[in-house]
Every structure is written in C-alpha cells, then in structure tokens.
C-alpha cells in the first residue's frame, strides 16, 4: 500500500490510488486504517476520502468479497431479459439481503449501462465482460470464475 501511495503525490490521484489499492486487495473494500493512511498521504482529512469512496459506486462496496458481479440492468439489457437474469443469479448464488452469495465470495450488483448494449444482456465479473447471456451461459461463466 505504501508503495502504491508513493507513486502518487498530488491529491488529484486519490481516485487512481484507491483503484490501485483495491486491485491489489482480495477484499474490495478499505479498512478505516487504510482510509486514514490515504488521507494522511494526500494531506486531506478522512471525511474527504470517505466522501469520494461513497460517491463512486465502484468503491462503495461495504462488504468483503472476492468477486463482484456487475449485472447491467439498464434499458437495453432490461428489455433483453436482465431482470430475470438478476433473479436467477441471486437465487443460484443464494444471495443474502446484502446481495452476497456463493458462500460469501460473490457480490451481485445491479448496475447502470455497461456500454455492452450490442451484446445485451451483459455482465462484468471483476475485470471481465460477458455478453449475449442466458441462464445457462451465465451459470457456466460463474462456475468458471469461482
């Protein structure tokens, strides 16, 4: 973490730094201690870091999970059946009320348009994207990415 922070001096790199730190971590959220270190490094206060974390949806994961499944539920995917896929996915992974399933290793997030409308319905699992989905295909992808 120190190493990542030391790559960035200017406060404008706050978002880049958080991206990098989260990329390195198994769990996609920051501890209070990490927030404090980031704040100190950029000479800002913790609330400002928190403000940024809670503004951007990619950062505002509050729970510790290994994988984030971002399933698009915007109009293009929606009319192509995204809604049913979401229900299916949550059932399949046995998601709790925080949308965590697969024995705590997956977070299912319904997100806005991923720019994959040409292959709707689509999902993003961590960094990878998949399109033209149906239940069967989605199941297979999940299994492959466990």
């Amino acid at each position, binding site marked *: 973490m120190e190493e990542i922070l030391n790559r960035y001096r*200017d*406060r*404008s*790199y*706050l*978002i*880049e730094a*958080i*991206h990098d730190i989260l990329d390195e971590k198994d769990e996609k959220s920051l501890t209070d201690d990490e927030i404090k270190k980031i704040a100190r490094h*950029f000479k800002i206060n913790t609330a*400002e870091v928190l*403000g*940024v974390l809670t*503004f*951007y*949806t*990619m*950062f*505002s994961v509050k729970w510790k999970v290994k994988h984030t499944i*971002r399933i698009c*539920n*915007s*109009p*293009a995917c*929606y*009319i*192509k059946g995204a809604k049913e896929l979401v229900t299916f996915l949550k059932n399949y992974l046995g998601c709790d009320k925080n949308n965590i399933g697969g024995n705590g290793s997956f977070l299912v997030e319904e*997100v*806005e*348009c*991923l*720019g*994959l*409308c*040409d*292959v*709707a319905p689509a999902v*993003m699992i961590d*960094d*990878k*994207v998949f399109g033209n989905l149906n239940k069967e295909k989605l199941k297979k992808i999940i299994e492959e990415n466990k």
Partner: protein
Amino acid sequence: MKIKVENSLSSPVILSFSKEDTISAYVSNGGFEVLDDFIINGKKKEILSEVTKSDLKGRGGAAFKVGIKWNAVAKIESDKKFVVCNADEGEPGTFKDRWLLENRPFLIIEAITLCAYAVGASKGYIYIRGEYKNSIKTFKNALTQAYEEGFLGKNIFNSNFNFDLEIRQGAGSYVCGEETALLESIEGKRAQPRFKPPFPVEKGLWGYPTVINNVETFANVVNIIKNGANWFKQLGTENSPGTKLFPVSGRIQEPCLVEANLGVSLEKLIEEAGGVDGEFQCALVGGAAGNFIYEKELNYPLSYETLKEKGMVLGSGAVLILNRNDKKEEIVEKILEFFINESCGKCTPCREGYPILLEKFNGYLNGSVSMDEVLKLSELMFKTSLCALGQSSKFLFESYFKV
C-alpha cells in the same frame, strides 16, 4: 462488435481507417502525418481555422461548436492550459466511444495532441469510465507506444512543443460525464458539477482554461484537418455537417455501431442493422437524456437542428429499438430510477425532484395523478437544475406523452 457504414456514405470519416493494432500500422496508414506537418510548420492558426470552418459540433450530447471552444482557450493568456477527452460514456445504450477507444486509440491521441498544440496546452487527460477495463488497457498500451515513438512527451517532432497525455479512470458515476463534474473527478474529488459560467474554457481544471471534448468529437478532427473543412461540410446536413456514430441496440436483428451522415433517418439506421426484431413500437434516441421517436417520425432526418425544431434532442446518438411487446412505461421507470441513483445530490431540484417525479409517474400510471402534474414537475426541474442531469426528464416525458 459489428460496425457498419451506411451505404450512402461515400467516404466515412471515422470508420475509414483500418484497425490500428500497433502504432506502426497506424503510421504506415498515414497516421500522425497531419500532426507532423502542422507542428513542424507551426500551423496553429490553421488548425483552429479549419476546425472552426468545419462547423463540427460536439458529439458528447450537447452539440456545442468545437471551434468556439478551441478558439476561446487559444485566446486566453495563461501559464497553464489543459485538454481533456471525455471518455466517460455512461449514457444508457451508448457504446460508440468504447469502440473508438479500443479500435482507434492513435487517432484519438493524434487529435488530442493537435488540439493541445493549437490551443497551447501542454498537459492533457483522457477520462475513461472505470467500467471500461478493456478500453483502459488498450489505451494505456497505445499511450506507451506513442511515448516510445516520440509522438507524446518532450519536443514532439523535434519542435519545442511538449505534451503529456494521461489516463484518469472513473469509478462508477454517470454524472462524471458532465464536463465540470468530470473536472472535479480528475482533481480527485466527488464528481459534483460546478455552476456555469464560468465555463471550462475559461476556468477548467484547477481553474485554468480547458478544452473538453468527447472521444467521437476528437475522432473527427484529424480527417477534417487532413481533408479540409470544405470536404467535411459536404457530409451530413447544412447545419449538422459530418457523420455520426449511432449505436443501435434493443429489438434489432443485428445490434451494431453505424456510421452515417447526420440527417440520416431512423428507418435507414434500422435497415442497416438488419431490421426490427418484432414489430416496431418506438426508439429511445439519445439514451436516458434522450427521447422517444415514433413510427410516424421514422423518416425524419436525425440531425441536431431538425430535432431541435421539433423540441427533441439527438444526444449521444444512441438508438434503442422497442417493439410492440416492450413496455414503454417500464423504460421510463428505469430511466427515472437511473437518475435517482446517478443524481450527484448537489442541487435541490434534481436530488429531491426525481424521487417525487417517479412517485408521480407511478401515480399517473394508476390514474391518481394527472399528466399535467408530471409535466409541470419535469418542467420545473428543467428550468432550475444546476446541470443537465436534472434537466433531462423534460424531453423524455414530452415525447412519452405524445402518444
């Protein structure tokens, strides 16, 4: 992704280049020639005048004239100036910039550098939405190559022109696409839009004059300069010259990206994309910030001014086709939810208005609220919101209630 060029288009502007896998492929196809020529010969004024003459309008949604922006920044004396490329593409149904980032990165780099040279900026940013991991990767790679070959960095083409271009990633926020919110985000802050004026050309990044343009806008620039404004003006319509990338999706046989002359009809676009999947009901044009277009308007020319005449917008150019089985009101609900989620929360009308608007719309659907009341609220938000996000539902509802 499937890409298509509308068949009436004699010379495509953007899709004409062959795929640029490597910088050498781009260069051997004539890439960076324009930049070379104009920098070596110190033709700043010529860049500005060609762009101005071409009457190119921004492709990010607001359709503001590019020449006016560039000239404004070029004119201001300032020890720092910036160029920013808006690659935050978050408009639902839009995927044109993604394609450009992943397939035409050098064209974009060349255009941004041209702009920087013309306006006197030595630092640029390209802000790519965080979800576009592939685009970020491809573009990073392209940047590295451009630096290695000396097209970026110090003393470009052995001139005394220095230019650095840096990628900044978004992190999940639609409003970041709004230009001043995007500036805030580049500064590492919460992406809450600033009031305007002052406009970014006057006070942009860290208060310095800044040009901000959309990816597709930049993608037009190299060809305009290479072939001249007159060539460009032959394309499209009189007031909307050039071509446009239309991402076509939804109930369509072959979802794809179509390059077509501005002024093309919806019917033509549907044809290019293999026809409607089912029976055509309407199209949502321009994404969430856009409007519905119906059967009777299928032949209407899609250009900035023609739509404006009818009180409509082209926006990002996204075309989402709905067939008779799709529920239009569900799309409206989705869009309102989208705005509720994506409102930055800064200004009162948008932050407080959207949830109430959704309530009222549901009320309208079950008969307890009048159409007028919905329209009145969306009109209030249109007139009083700080940025266009809060103003967007006006077009949606006006077009929704048309039928």
